[in-house]
């Protein structure tokens, strides 16, 4: 039966293959790529999300950008100096043109940062900046309200926009620079940046086409791709199939279940990296009295086998974590390691007087993070071994976050990537004393509160001496670890795959912002 079907299949297949037209060879180097989603808008200030930043790196250039080793690389800014504690002066390139033909100048940087401060998504992280002034065409001065050590981190988010192009009003009489979340705006459908690619065609949800910008300023860039066609393929199996069948040359992300399949295929290459997104569980102290006892929290931390989850469940596609900060971040403490020890966990439960355990509820998304629902099940099973009965519920992400905001379960899963690529950000959102007015601890579903740590982080955020600052942040990580404020699980790894002649490795980084302008495709 299967034989017949396969025979029949191969006959049909042979008939079909001859019908496929041979692809027309062109002199242009073209990259066909597939991501799991396409950018929601062309306005790079409309949403702070990975997809938008990826788009920004294609159509715009930042002032500075991250290197692979998390150091800064000058882009549109060639140099910077701290004039005093609250002022930084940046020198800009003078040979840069926008896609529209306008010349890039300091005024565009001022205009862009002022627009960022109006964007609902970006205004929070640009809060520290008080004012920006153009000293001359190639010099800007950025003033912060208080000494702020992360100004360069912020500069990676400043992709100067063409202020002349985005000024005035469009055909409907709306200002061209308005940021509209729901509804059309000029900026959400028109782009003029300084970046390596110009958007030539866009059908949302279907395809977006980019052409290399002829007058791109960076003549030293090795990039040789003339055209990029990006298709969103949300279905994991189809995305991998598209790569393996040669329909596309570059895909991301590669689902963990298909890693082996991609690795073994001779015509494609796989690149993986330890990521920076921490996956963790909060233990709600407000809902569960037992969680107020540090011993119980430690018992939970000892009972959960991070290495096991990373090895077996994630098939090695995750780096087990014992803290927020991944390697390379200022607050990363080398000595902190996952502390799985079941005996010790049981002993701690006895010490805390919960020998017979208790019952808790747990909630996790089921389509937000890699294997999220399975991880939650594994954690629930591990907790059963210290007599904790878990009532687990998993939800699609669209519904999950509403429940998370309401803190409806005793243990809730969350993944976090620090927008500033900085350790302090983790604490500010995930473990700072919750305060609805300042927005501190917005995602602190543990309701953990340690005012001393809040103070320490606040001080660190004023500390210009980066070494001193790192020490302070490491102290924060150590305290959170000792207190077992939450249960860290792992940093989710990143994976990309491409045809073997597409040299993706040099342009990839842990932020998952591929610098496609520098991508090299070699002849086969």
């Amino acid at each position, binding site marked *: 039966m299967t034989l017949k079907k396969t025979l029949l299949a*191969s006959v049909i*297949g042979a008939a079909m293959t001859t019908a496929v037209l041979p692809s027309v060879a062109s002199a242009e180097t073209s990259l066909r790529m597939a991501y799991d989603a396409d950018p929601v808008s062309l306005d790079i200030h409309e949403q702070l999300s990975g997809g938008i930043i990826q788009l920004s790196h294609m159509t715009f250039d930042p002032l500075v950008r991250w290197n692979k080793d998390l150091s800064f690389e000058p882009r549109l800014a060639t140099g910077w100096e701290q004039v005093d504690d609250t002022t930084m002066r940046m020198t800009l390139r003078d040979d840069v043109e926008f896609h529209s033909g306008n010349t890039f100048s300091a005024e565009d940087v001022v205009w862009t940062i002022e627009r960022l401060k109006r964007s609902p998504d970006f205004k929070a992280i640009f809060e520290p900046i008080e004012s920006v002034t153009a000293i001359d065409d190639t010099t800007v001065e950025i003033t912060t309200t208080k000494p702020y050590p992360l100004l360069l981190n912020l500069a990676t988010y400043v992709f100067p926009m063409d202020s002349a192009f985005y000024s005035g009003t469009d055909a409907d009489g709306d200002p061209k620079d308005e940021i509209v979340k729901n*509804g059309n*705006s000029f900026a959400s459908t028109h782009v003029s940046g300084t970046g390596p690619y110009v958007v030539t065609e866009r059908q949302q*949800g*279907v395809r977006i086409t980019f052409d290399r910008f002829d007058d791109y300023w960076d003549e030293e860039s090795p990039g040789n791709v003339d055209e990029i066609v990006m298709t969103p393929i949300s279905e994991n199996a*189809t995305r991998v199939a598209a790569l393996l069948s040669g329909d596309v040359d570059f895909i991301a992300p590669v689902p963990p279940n298909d890693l082996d399949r991609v690795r073994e295929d001779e015509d494609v290459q796989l690149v993986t990296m330890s990521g920076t997104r921490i996956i963790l569980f909060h233990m709600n102290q407000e809902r569960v009295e037992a969680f107020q006892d540090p011993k119980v929290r430690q018992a939970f931390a000892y009972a959960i086998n991070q290495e096991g989850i990373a090895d077996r469940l994630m098939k090695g596609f995750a780096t087990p974590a014992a803290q927020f900060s991944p390697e390379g971040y200022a607050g990363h403490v080398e000595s902190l390691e996952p502390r799985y020890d079941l005996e010790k966990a049981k002993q701690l439960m006895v010490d805390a007087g919960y020998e017979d355990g208790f019952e808790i509820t747990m909630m996790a998304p089921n389509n937000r993070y890699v294997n999220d629902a399975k991880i939650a099940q594994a954690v629930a099973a591990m907790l059963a071994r210290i007599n904790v009965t878990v009532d687990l519920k998993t939800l699609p992400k669209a519904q999950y976050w509403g429940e998370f905001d309401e803190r409806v379960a005793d243990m809730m899963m969350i993944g*976090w990537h620090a927008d500033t690529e900085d350790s302090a950000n983790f604490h500010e959102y995930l473990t700072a004393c919750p305060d609805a007015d300042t927005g501190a601890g917005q995602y602190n579903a543990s309701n953990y509160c340690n005012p001393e740590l809040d103070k320490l982080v606040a001080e660190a955020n004023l500390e210009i001496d980066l070494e001193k600052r790192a020490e302070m942040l490491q102290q924060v990580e150590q305290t959170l670890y000792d207190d077992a404020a939450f249960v860290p699980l792992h940093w989710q790894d990143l994976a990309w795959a491409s045809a073997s002649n597409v040299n993706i490795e040099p342009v990839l980084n842990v932020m998952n912002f591929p610098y496609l302008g520098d991508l090299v495709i070699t002849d086969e």
Partner: protein
Amino acid sequence: MIAFLIKRLYHALLVMFVISIIAFAIQDNLGDPIQQMVGQSVPESEREALREELGLNDPFLVQYLRFAGNAVQFDFGYSYTFNQPTTEVIMRHLPATLELVAASTFLIIALSVPIGVYSAIRPRAWLSRFFMGVSIVGISIPVFLTAIVLIQIFAIGVSVAPFPADTGWGAWLNEALSTDGGMPAYGRGDPVNVFGTWDSNFASLEGLTYLVLPAVSLASIMLPLFIRLIRAEMLEVLQSEYVKFARAKGISLRRIYFIHALKNTMLPVITVGGVQIGTLVAYTILTETVFQWPGMGLMFLNAIQRSDVPLIVTYLMIVGLIFVITNTLVDLIYGLVNPTVKLTGKPA
């Protein structure tokens, strides 16, 4: 006739009204659209402002009346993700879905009629048994799996070597069992624009190659059902008096099978078929997702994942409309095939 159409129009409006109420009532369970529109680090105050701006804080009835008031003027609101009127978004995705359904329908009709008739005429032939066996398997395999297997075989290619490759016959068999792949695995390629928002895959040979795998996997759901239906009906008709009489009269077998018997076989097939074509539109959600076919099904699934309520409501209403339209068409065709049926319901 006109009275019938007016009645159906009234039906359509009623269906759409009911669907809109149901869709609106469940929107709270579809998740928070704001969550999908802003970054994770955006403070609650900004979210609240956006929620207020979109009118999501208003009571259910106020929200629904606002929607209904606009809807009667053919304004179904703005999609949260596409930032365009939902009707525009759907009109852009509709041709892809309709083409896929049309291609599948064509496959189903072109295959089920001859196969069904054949296996009714020769119920004991081994080929008939083979078709019946395959159709059982076809009915039981989910469309999702069919699609992935098709992609593996025809797009990626399989290379197997169960036979000794060093012998001539073994190498030949291995070669025959392996496939090179090469069919497009996703999307529509570069469809040719016909007019307006209608880009067609039927207009070029290359476009058709993109259509083959999705259409085959979508057809795989309904094809077995129709083969079995036609076979059963035909078997019954062949037993009837008038067929026996025709045979006794000496009319050629071909004429009996394909003119006299088939026509009566088709009546129930048309009824079921009309309903099933509507269902086919629903099945496109799965097929389109696997093949990244940029039609309404894929759009709908994305809309659900992003809690794009206006788009979800509009989609459901339009699918309801499609059901009413196909049923109306079926009734019209029914009248053509069987003149004894009067549409207006008056006795003949």
